[in-house]
């Protein structure tokens, strides 16, 4: 307090304004959490926590709700999207930082950032009108004829290929999260001190060895943080997925089946949720997603902090 008083009045005013601004953010988050909790309390009371999470029922007619099917859809699309996106994103980042000649770095970097700027509904429409038919006619039948013949693994590719399924949705999602992972990975790679890299080159290491043994270990935490950030984005993505996922509350072993995610369910069913328990269950889903995203971002933050600490040390 004494420190504050000693400052001049303009500074004090400035401090107060910025403090209020940042307090607003905290209040908003607390407020959202509170409202979600309040609105979902009816469903929490009726269905419990574990029972709700593990129940595959989503029956608006009988007013019985469970989150398992949407959690399944959310988890599968997110994990698959990361599976497709991470290699591409990290490869791109390595290319930009280490391999590309200087005149290419700018354009490629901007192109990646532009990917992030495309509104998600456009990805959705592109997915439905362009990607889904290609998937249905070429890619999915091809997968069925090759990987689909392998025992056990084949179950993943069973069913009629329609292009409107978990697989297509995951591919769209992966394209959407590539920019996040790639730009954070690029920044982390750039944090590697030039002196360490040069020493490695000096003792005769090849480019591949430098990337593998110096840059990747050095920026591990940062890259991981970036991955978790894109995971948060994939968890919350709605419109693009709603177009190509088929929106069905079911759990199936095949990637060529329709499914539903938490956000898609919210977008689809909010307007016509006419009973209290239905509405409350939707809020409950939102609460679960909020907590999941919160945990994901917290983990990301921890890893980023660790990366920074290593850099400053």
């Amino acid at each position, binding site marked *: 307090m004494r420190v504050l008083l000693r400052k001049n009045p303009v500074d004090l005013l400035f401090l107060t304004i910025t403090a209020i601004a940042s307090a607003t953010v905290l209040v908003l988050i607390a407020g959202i959490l509170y409202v979600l909790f309040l609105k979902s309390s009816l469903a929490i009371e009726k269905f419990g926590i574990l029972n709700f999470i593990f129940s595959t029922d989503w029956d608006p007619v009988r007013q019985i709700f469970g989150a398992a099917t949407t959690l399944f859809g959310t988890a599968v699309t997110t994990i698959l999207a990361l599976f497709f996106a991470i290699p591409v994103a990290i490869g791109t980042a390595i290319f930009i930082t280490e391999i590309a000649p200087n005149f290419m770095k700018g354009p490629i970097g901007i192109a990646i950032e532009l990917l992030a700027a495309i509104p998600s509904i456009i990805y959705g429409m592109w997915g439905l009108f362009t990607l889904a038919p290609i998937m249905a006619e070429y890619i999915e039948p091809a997968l069925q004829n090759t990987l689909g013949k392998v025992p056990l693994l084949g179950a993943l590719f069973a069913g009629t290929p329609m292009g409107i399924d978990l697989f297509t949705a995951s591919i769209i999602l992966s394209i959407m999260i590539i920019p996040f992972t790639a730009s954070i990975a690029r920044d982390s790679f750039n944090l590697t001190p030039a002196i360490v890299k040069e020493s490695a080159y000096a003792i005769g290491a090849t480019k591949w060895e430098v990337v593998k043994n110096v840059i990747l270990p050095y920026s591990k935490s940062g890259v991981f943080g970036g991955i978790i950030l894109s995971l948060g984005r994939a968890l919350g993505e709605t419109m693009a997925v709603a177009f190509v996922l088929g929106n069905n509350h079911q759990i199936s072993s095949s990637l060529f089946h329709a499914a539903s995610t938490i956000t898609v369910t919210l977008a689809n*069913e909010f307007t016509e949720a006419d009973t209290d328990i239905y509405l409350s269950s939707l809020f409950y889903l939102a609460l679960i997603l909020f907590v999941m995203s919160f945990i994901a971002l917290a983990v990301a933050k921890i890893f980023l902090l660790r990366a920074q600490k290593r850099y400053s040390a």
Partner: protein
Amino acid sequence: MKRAVTIVFTIIVAMMTTIAFAGETLNGAGATFPYPVYSAWAWDYNKITGIKLNYQSIGSGGGQRQIANRTVDFGASDAPLKPGKLNKLKLYQFPAVIGGVVPVVNIPKMKAGQIRLDGEAMCGIFLGTITTWNDKIISGLNPGLKFPDKKITVVHRSDGSGTTAIFTTYLSGICSKWKDKVGAGKAVKWPTGIGGKGNEGVANYVRRVKYSIGYVEFAYAKQNKLTYTLLKNPAGTFVKPNFQSFQDAAASGKFDPKKHFYLWLTNAPGKNAWPIAGATFILLAREKRDSNINTVKFYDWAFNNGDKTAKRLVYVPLPEALKDKVRGYWKSHGIY
């Protein structure tokens, strides 16, 4: 400086005249299905009377909630509310326009109106017990047609909607298995198939996926020239979905003003009635007499002058007898 003052002054005057000219506004919210026809009526009505209609198509559920909370002058819902609920929420209810649902298919070489389906076939297809197009039940209904041995893909709505409510009420009416297993509602637990968002989503999926069957609103099927099927109605006739068969359904439905017109028009008894029809309803708050009179004036005007507009937009106007019943209902509640 002088010029700046003049400009500001002009703007203020312009704004004030706009406000004065805007006059009265009716606020409504609810079902998305009748939105195009309500806004077309509102446009014409505004030209004649100067009264503006502000209708937000937020969905039937939202419409019911908003009128229950009294935040709008009227709510609109594709699903009728039961008299008990209307009394509890202190609401009036009357039908405004007729709509319906049409099954659409994608089978190469099959044309619109060629395939005949009945209750048993529809029930089996949507329950997932009839899995291929060359099933005996389907080919039995269509002796002249040759169906391929292909798996049927069912396409349904993924978002909650009045269309689904009408369609599942129809299925529940003709099929006890459906009634026990799934039931009727704006969103149900579908035993099979994939879900598209909105009529356009379902239509797109049906167009995209070969050997699929879905259901869309009549207007949507007609405007997009989708391959619809014929359906067998309770009177035993195979009917085509058109204005006539929808009006037959509406005319043979027993709308009762004492029950606030609570009625599902599905499986109507008329000889040529389309079996999956439904009225879309307007909800009014009982204590708001003044705004109710204004709303009723608008709908009375639409009943008298709006049939042509409605038909142009492929909505089925209420039959004259039903319009008179609605007017009687308004009169008996003192808002006409």
